[in-house]
């Protein structure tokens, strides 16, 4: 493991993701107003909330795509700035397509996910094997040589997930993996995720509604206006929580959600 020393008493190992009082802005508009979010080893955490509540921004501060203006982000007990062990993290960005401006095969796209384990970008036999295995996990091994342009929306999402799995990560971060995915692909994705979780992978995923993933979720964190509104077991009627008009305030979450903090820190 890495250089962690001051670990919490309950679990000897640090959480895989720890956000403490994180604030972030998008073009001077505060999007995160001091959120706390922890994902422990082997845990599956769903990040929920209405559009514009800061779900995707929270995910992007973890991977470093959006700079934080305050607070701390840690991955595997290491501050994100010093974190280098990216092969342990698999990321599925919010996308409707896996295609770029130039044709690419399914294998070519998924191979990018193996770069974190490949030295100087040289893919060896074991790497090719891992790419093939990742494609098998999402049921696309027979499409390996096809252009991603020839795939359906759900298959695109499966390619993006195979790309994240290619490095055999211990932590999966997924931004709306079920958006625009047909039912058949949703079931494949849920089965893939179930296998990963059974093998001990930790998961943080942004969702609009739980859907077929509901039985997998250990904990739900609900955001609203850049604050944590709820952190606990997934509420029953989850669709309701995701709505902007939802008024079910959890008093115990108040210490996690101090909008005033933004003003003091930034």
């Amino acid at each position: 493991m890495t250089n962690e020393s001051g670990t919490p008493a309950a679990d000897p190992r640090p959480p895989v993701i720890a956000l403490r009082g994180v604030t972030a802005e998008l073009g001077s508009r505060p999007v995160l107003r001091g959120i706390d979010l922890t994902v422990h080893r082997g845990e599956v955490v769903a990040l929920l909330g209405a559009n514009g509540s800061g779900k995707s921004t929270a995910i992007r501060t973890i991977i470093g795509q959006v700079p934080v203006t305050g607070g701390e982000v840690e991955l595997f007990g290491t501050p994100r700035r010093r974190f280098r062990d990216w092969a342990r993290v698999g990321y599925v960005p919010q996308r409707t397509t896996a295609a770029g401006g130039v044709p690419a095969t399914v294998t070519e796209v998924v191979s990018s996910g193996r770069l974190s384990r490949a030295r100087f970008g040289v893919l060896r036999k074991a790497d090719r094997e891992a790419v093939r295995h990742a494609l098998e996990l999402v049921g696309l091994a027979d499409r390996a040589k096809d252009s991603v342009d020839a795939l359906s929306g759900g298959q695109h999402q499966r390619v993006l997930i195979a790309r994240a799995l290619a490095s055999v990560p211990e932590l999966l971060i997924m931004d709306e993996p079920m958006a625009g995915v047909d039912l058949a692909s949703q079931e494949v994705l849920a089965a893939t995720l179930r296998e990963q979780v059974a093998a001990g992978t930790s998961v943080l995923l942004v969702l609009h509604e739980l859907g077929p993933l509901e039985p997998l979720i250990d904990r739900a964190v609900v955001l609203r206006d850049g604050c944590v509104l709820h952190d606990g077991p997934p509420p029953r009627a989850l669709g309701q929580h995701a709505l902007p008009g939802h008024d079910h305030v959890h008093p115990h979450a108040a210490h996690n959600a101090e909008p005033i903090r933004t003003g003091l820190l930034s």
Partner: protein
Amino acid sequence: MNLEILDYAFMQRALLAAVLVGITAPAVGIYLVQRRQALLGDGIGHVAMTGVGLGFLLSWSPVWMATAVSVVGAVLMELIRWYGRTRGDIALAMLFYGGMAGGVMFINLAPGGSNANLTSYLFGSLSTVSESDVTAICLLAAFVVLVTIGLRRQLFAVSQDEEFARVTGLPVRALNLLTAITAAVTVTVAMRVVGLLLVSALMVVPVAAAQQLSRSFAATFAISVAIGVSVTIGGTVTSYYQDVPPGATIVLLTIGAFMLLTVAATPLARRRARAAALVAAREAGDPAECAIPATRTPTGKVGV
């Protein structure tokens, strides 16, 4: 076949330069097209004019001076892309036209300089490619080939999905800068052959033409370089025998190749679409009865 064309030293230099341009321009262009910045090369070409002008003014090699200035310009463009989200295109416009105006200004300030000197850089002029130009072009082309082939997996990942590339631990910003610098170097490699105003065509059109045939990135790369080399050699030879400007000939040949391949690829595309539709129909074999309509598979377009 009569190969007397190779007897002239200037034609040997011209053909060597042409081949190098045919390789490097599409090799960089493919990454620009992939990241949907197809016209970046055009912008750099404008900025490079200032370098040419400065070269004349200071009596330094216009090729090396243009390289230096266009590298600075490319780095500036990349920085504008990072920081200047809101006013980005205004800043780019000023950079482009400032670069062009600077070139015209400097060349007219140079002793004995006039816009006529600039013309050979704007539209290419093979017969004036000097010995030292060829040395510069060879060195610069070697750099471009090294980057675009040696770092192809990294550049592919960054150009395909920048956000994901960050999570593989790749130095995304450094690679973006390297792409911009390599594009700038390519512009100056191509400057003597096709000219600054036509450079971008040779970066983009062969890639677009190759896409008509290919399904993979690797094949697109290979085919676009093959097209690039064919049209630059073809254009150079044509300009020798027919006394037509090489740059324009090369670009028109490239566009011709694009149209030819588009027509040739139509039956191929139709066959592939049919195969894909068959696969899709097979996969959607058992439609779930209670599926939410909005999330159903879009398999309606099974046109045979």
